[in-house]
């Protein structure tokens, strides 16, 4: 039987790694701020699909610190999120964590905010930092609303294709 879960947390007593290789697709964002929630919308589509048994999909909402359990239990992490990069709305980014500077400028004098990139960094303090790939989408609107804008909604099939391309790279035999 193929494993398909929204969150593996309920099956876990905590801390352990589920062998042999655990791939987590983590969709994050705020469902109430239109395109900010694109990662959540993609995760909700992915959970309906037939995925290899090594793969679990987690819809992470706007969680930060609290995704630590998900992150530390993953060997390989694929994050789907809105990314502000000043490109045209609907543009898609792909980057591996480590190649983007994690700390916002000026954090030395202010107090830092913890975001998803920082939590991935933090996971290294208590174990391994999973090799992480971000697939990002430039949002069009961050206004209140539970629907994506048509421009971003139309990108969902392509984002899912890109997720599958990543999975093929990680699991070449499948």
């Amino acid at each position, binding site marked *: 039987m193929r494993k398909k879960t929204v969150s593996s947390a309920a099956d*876990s007593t905590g801390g352990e790694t589920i062998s042999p290789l655990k791939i987590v697709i983590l969709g994050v964002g705020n469902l109430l701020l239109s395109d900010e929630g694109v990662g959540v919308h993609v995760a909700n589509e992915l959970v309906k699909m037939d995925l290899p048994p090594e793969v679990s999909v987690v*819809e992470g909402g706007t969680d930060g610190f609290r995704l630590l359990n998900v992150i530390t239990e993953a060997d390989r992490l694929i994050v789907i999120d809105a990314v502000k990069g000043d490109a045209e709305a609907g543009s898609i980014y792909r980057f591996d964590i480590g190649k983007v500077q994690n700390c916002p400028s000026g954090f030395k004098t202010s107090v830092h905010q913890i975001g998803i990139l920082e939590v991935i960094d933090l996971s290294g303090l208590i174990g391994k930092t999973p090799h992480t790939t971000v697939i990002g989408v430039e949002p069009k609107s961050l206004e209140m609303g539970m629907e994506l804008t048509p421009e971003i909604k139309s990108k969902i099939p392509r984002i899912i294709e890109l997720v599958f391309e990543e999975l093929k790279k990680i699991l070449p035999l499948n």
Partner: protein
Amino acid sequence: MAKKVVVDPITRIEGHLKIEVEVENGKVKDAWSSGTMARGFEAMLTGKDPRDASYITSRFCGVCYSVHQLASARALDAAFGAQVPWGGNLIRNLVMGAEYIYDHVLHFYQLSALDYIDIMAVANYKGKDKELLAVKDKIVGLVKAKDTYPLTPRYAPDEFTVKDPDLVISAVNHYLKALKMHAKARNMGAIWGGRTPHYQNIVVGGVTSYPDLNQWARFRTMLDEQKKFIEEVYIPDVLTFGKGPLWPLAKMGVGGGHYNYLSYGDFPKDSAGKDLVFPAGVIIGLDPANIKVDPVDTKKITESVKYAWYKAKNPVHPYDGEQVYDLDKKGAYTFVKAPRYDGKAMEVGPFARMIVAKNPDVIGLVKEGAKPGAVARHAARAIETKLIADACYVWLDQLLTEMTKPGFKIHDTAHWDPPESGMGAGFHEAPRGGLGHWIKIKDKKIENYQAVVPSTWNASPRCENGVRGQYEESLIGAPVPDPENPINVGRIIRSFDPCLACAIHIIDPQTNEIRKFLIE
């Protein structure tokens, strides 16, 4: 000459809180607390099926979602006339109990401890403990690699900062252990909640899925491990620091504020609902020698918008609240409204709950000379974490008894359909403090919805008659000898567990290189 100091953002988690203080002669003379992001998610709820409210409100905040889900479900329970069976309440309690354990441990170690220790002192550790030497190697290694985030201190150490290498290395070791503990605590709520984040099981009338013995046993095993950490690490650490190197700060009562406290009361210990883990009560102008607690009357709650970016309106009860922005309003400086109880600015949260409860451990610290303030807040938080963990065992035992009864119920199915019209309020003592949701229903749809969240109380601006909010008041007189290094401002505000997340989560890499990764 007074000098203005701005700390922005002040939260260590996603948040949009700015604190401005005016410093004169090395002390804070005046203060302004400002929420810099518009919220107003409530407006989205108008016209929706009331049953959607508990799911939608759980998305209000990226950090404390389950608390909204519960407060919302309770508001709906009241409006629908639903009677939650004791079995349903027990499961609600257990889910939230796990949240408390998670939240408070995280707050102390990850969000606050670095305000009090000089992490660089680990390099001077001369002991032979293998575990601690490994911590030393790890931290020194990170420093050499210039990769100290997120352990980098925000401010330079001051006279109160703990620099003793043995104490600091033990604290850093526990910081790392706490990370592991709350990665695990996170899974506890999901046992009943069905998933995490954003639990699915809490709905109007009770909860959605029956517990089984396997879940029960897993929860209990995980609780054992958390309780051990709370009793053997968390509480001893808070006491070692609070009554040791931080005792001068505790005695000074740095961060005291108005000394007005509100607890809505929460977590029934039995089906009669009379005996609460956190009793309800109001204290106005605390006199530690003679603590006078009055009953809570939620009709006395009003919200002022005089200094907030909303259309001018006289203070109203949350049932009648609205979100109409006025960004050009003269004198306004925040998106946070100013809730008041009987016209008074209140503190909500662990210290409010523990002092309203006349908790003997907190009273004991006060008798020894600790004054209400930043350090006392940390102590109260640790003490109530143990109370909740202990209560979880009681609830587990009761749940087991309920599960074996014939006709065991977790939901009031007779009240699932929305009423034609109605109104209801739901209260929850969330880890950060008292939370209230108010709903009005018309034609089976939501007519109006308002939430007054813990940080709205604590972070509120001035009200109609110019009285400061609790953050603001708690800063008055705080020592800031060096305006470039306002470390006490951070300590005071973070002792409240500030959070105005509500909840933007976009990745903003703050680098021009992002375009290189553009693929299409």
